[in-house]
């Protein structure tokens, strides 16, 4: 088995052309990023609204759970039958998958902001928008970005379904390999997917480090110290 995997990776034919690793990785990345952007544009504003006003929290958590329960493969198949368009079906399916973690992270991030901080901001005379953007969002950022990272991991793992409706991406290796019982190819597809997930998560961790304000990181470190003490 390991020999087959090594053979697959060392075969130069697998690194070139339309079915080569670079092409498939870029396709996979393309599905992930496109659905991530769409899901973020939908989920973050809703999460901010609900988290800021506190209105609709129960509805949000409930519908998030319902969406989570949808099997992505089934959804994509259904959408494909509906639209007879692979791209639309795959992207919608992935967007639906990515919305709950981003929504939950944004909402939970705002909810986790210390009530006394929000109270002080309001009492100082900040208007709603000022409070949201100057206070709540910067403080909530670690949890919001945590939700985004969650979504990215799920997207990378699930974007393989695109291949199921005839598209490219790393899912091709899984399906095509299974079709001809080439387990080396199947394993290679799985390894590449996992590597992509790890690399993307590292990139996002770096972004998070750069974006989260220093004072918030200090407060988090302090809270951890108190818990362990």
């Amino acid at each position, binding site marked *: 088995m390991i020999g087959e995997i090594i053979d697959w990776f060392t075969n130069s034919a697998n690194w070139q052309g339309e079915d080569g690793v670079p092409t498939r990785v870029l396709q996979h990345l393309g599905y992930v990023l496109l659905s991530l952007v769409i899901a973020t544009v939908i989920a973050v504003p809703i999460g901010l609204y609900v988290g800021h006003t506190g209105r609709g929290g129960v509805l949000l958590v409930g519908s998030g759970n319902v969406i989570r329960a949808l099997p992505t493969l089934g959804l994509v198949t259904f959408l494909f039958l509906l639209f007879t368009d692979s791209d639309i079906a795959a992207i919608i399916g992935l967007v639906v998958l990515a919305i709950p973690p981003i929504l939950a992270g944004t909402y939970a991030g705002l909810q986790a902001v*210390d009530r*006394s*901080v929000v*109270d*002080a*901001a*309001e*009492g*100082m*005379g*900040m*208007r709603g928008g*000022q409070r949201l953007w100057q*206070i709540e969002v*910067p*403080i909530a950022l670690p949890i919001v970005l945590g939700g985004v990272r969650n979504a990215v991991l799920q997207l990378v793992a699930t974007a393989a379904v695109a291949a199921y409706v005839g598209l490219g991406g790393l899912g091709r290796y899984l399906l095509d390999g299974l079709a001809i019982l080439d387990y080396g190819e199947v394993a290679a597809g799985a390894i590449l997917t996992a590597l992509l997930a790890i690399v993307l998560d590292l990139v996002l961790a770096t972004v998070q480090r750069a974006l989260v*304000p*220093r*004072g*918030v990181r*200090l*407060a988090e*470190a*302090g809270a951890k110290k108190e818990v362990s003490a």
Partner: protein
Amino acid sequence: MGIEFRGITKKYPDGTVAVDDLNLTIEDGTITVLVGPSGCGKTTSLRMINRMVEPTSGSILLEGEDIRDSDAALLRRGIGYVIQHAGLFPHRTVLSNIATVPLLSGWDKNKAKKRAAELLEVVGLPAEVGKRYPAQLSGGQQQRVGVARALAADSPVLLMDEPFSAVDPVVREGLQDELLRLQSQLGKTIVFVTHDIDEAVRLGDRVAVLRVGGKLAQYGTPAEVLRQPVDDFVAGFVGKDRGYRGLSFLAADDVLVEDVPTVRVGSKPEGSDGWRLAVNDAGEPRGWLAPGSVVDGELVEGELLAGGSLYQQGTPIRGALDAALSSPASLGVVVDADGKAIGVVTARQVLDVIENHPEGVAR
């Protein structure tokens, strides 16, 4: 003109009455303390002044104007607000925390930072604290920053909602002293909420005692509330020690200060009759030498009995009684403003003064 509550009632949709027909006039330039058990509506009443809570009926006048006539956010920028856990913004440095309201009001950034640095000094924090983040400060320091942030708007009114209740007792006492010192310089109209009657009588020029259900039970000076509680609720709330605590408001000018034999630490004491007060070269009391004790050679501090509390002349009579009661010699040591011993008082003498006092404690 200060702040005026006119028939203020706050009723929640579930029928709970937080504040019930509150009428109260808070005078300019004073500290008014709202005090009472939990559920008495003191915080709700405070938060109605800056419209964090809107009353169900009645009106609040600030400097003679109904607060509902002004925009809520603008009104709040003109009122200092300090809360229990300080509520500092964790992602901003101490200086930008303090500069919050000036920046909201559109001040130039440099001017706001300069003002913030000044205020840091006003609340007794070193300049280097300004660059730190709230997570790097102690609870007491955070609370000082909270006060500085509330002062930044330079508003005449300051609302303080249990600002010191989350810090330990020693730090709390320091913060209370600091507030009184600041107030003597600034003369703000301060509305202060606490559940601690000791804090209330210590800080307040006037104390409003509220009972559960949001009714005003009594409103008066701390001395009035302690000496003449209007009913059992107030009497129970101000506590068993209220007679003793009332002594904090009685001057002790009439207490006779008697001479006492002294011995100097480092010298050779002569004779052995009666209690002798040991003083150092600066005249400050160091302890007592018991009757009959004989000292070989020079007197060292280790041979002395520890003294009791010291009573500084001119302060309320409570300190004089405590000095007498806590002294091993039953003689309370009286010191002047420089800490130099000037004589002693006995508990008997102090009690005589209290009993003959025209404003007698329990009357």
